[in-house]
């Protein structure tokens, strides 16, 4: 079965997107990206530290990966737009994860500013993936204004709490036409698997992989779990029932009438 996630003309086979923050080293990051076989990675943009030159992260990201700069650090739509334009000027493509955060404790997205930035950037030709708080009314507007996908949070960034917004994410999946990609909060492969079973188009994982003692191993585990969940979604999840249904023949053994 050929099953691709199509965004902006790209055919993406591996539905585990990986964020590159917080790895202990670029080498460990590279191993994780390669072992997982991920095809979409996020990066951030920051001022160059002129005094202490560091390796360039791009040298550690497999060449076949789609690079998605995020707008982290932006506190409003204007800042997000400025970051996105700078990122695009790097020549690494026109994808952008819009991330506008005003709350420092839970790092929750500002849906209104996110909406504004998405509109501006989509008009400029960006492939816009907005990080958002799951809300159908905003998601519908993001679709109208040109988002390529929506990225609702599962739980706060880096919290490893899993998909605590399932009810609302499921409604997004049911009601909007563009891909729904759960971003933030997934801490375990089983949670990523569950997202895919619900019908998510992909998931983005960063912290749970980056801070693991063995990032490559856990990245591979997430990759498998995402693949498993996707396959289950495509094959149809069986419904659950309240009682039992025998899996062995119900006739008693060596008895006539059971």
């Amino acid at each position, binding site marked *: 079965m050929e099953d691709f996630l199509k965004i902006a003309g790209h055919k993406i086979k591996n539905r585990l997107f990986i964020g*590159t923050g917080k790895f202990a080293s670029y080498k460990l990051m590279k191993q994780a990206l390669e072992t997982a076989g991920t095809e979409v990675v996020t*990066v951030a*943009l920051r*001022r160059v530290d*002129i005094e202490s030159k560091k390796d360039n992260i791009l040298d550690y990201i497999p060449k076949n990966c789609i690079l998605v*700069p995020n707008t982290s650090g932006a506190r409003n739509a204007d800042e997000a737009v400025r970051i996105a334009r*700078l990122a695009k000027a*790097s020549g690494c493509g026109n994808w952008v994860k819009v991330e506008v955060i005003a709350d420092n404790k839970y790092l929750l997205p500002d849906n209104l500013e996110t909406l504004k930035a998405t509109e501006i950037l989509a008009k400029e030709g960006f492939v816009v993936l907005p990080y958002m708080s799951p809300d159908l009314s905003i998601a519908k507007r993001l679709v109208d204004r040109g988002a390529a996908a929506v990225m609702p949070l599962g739980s706060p960034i*880096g919290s490893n709490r899993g998909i605590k917004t399932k009810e609302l994410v499921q409604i997004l999946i049911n009601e909007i036409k563009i891909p729904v990609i759960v971003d933030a909060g997934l801490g375990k492969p089983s949670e990523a698997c569950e997202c895919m079973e619900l019908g998510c188009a992909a998931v983005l994982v960063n912290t749970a992989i980056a801070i693991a003692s063995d990032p490559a191993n856990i990245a591979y585990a997430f990759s498998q779990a995402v693949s498993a969940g996707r396959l289950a979604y495509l094959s149809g999840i069986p419904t659950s029932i309240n009682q039992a249904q025998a899996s062995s023949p119900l006739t008693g053994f060596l008895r006539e009438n059971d």
Partner: protein
Amino acid sequence: MIIKINGKDEAIDKIKNIFELITHKGLSCEKIVVEHNFSIIPKEEWEKIVLNENDNLEIVSFVGGG
């Protein structure tokens, strides 16, 4: 001549344009982006942009992010 680079004032001499500054600082041209007085400057124009007193330069590049 004093210009602001990444938020810090810096005195520079004998450097005329952005290209020279980048080279002088030993930065790799390929993977950085330069904003000059809030306008993004494509790499091919770095030599054309003459630096003046009080110019504001932002030099950015990619780092890990989620």
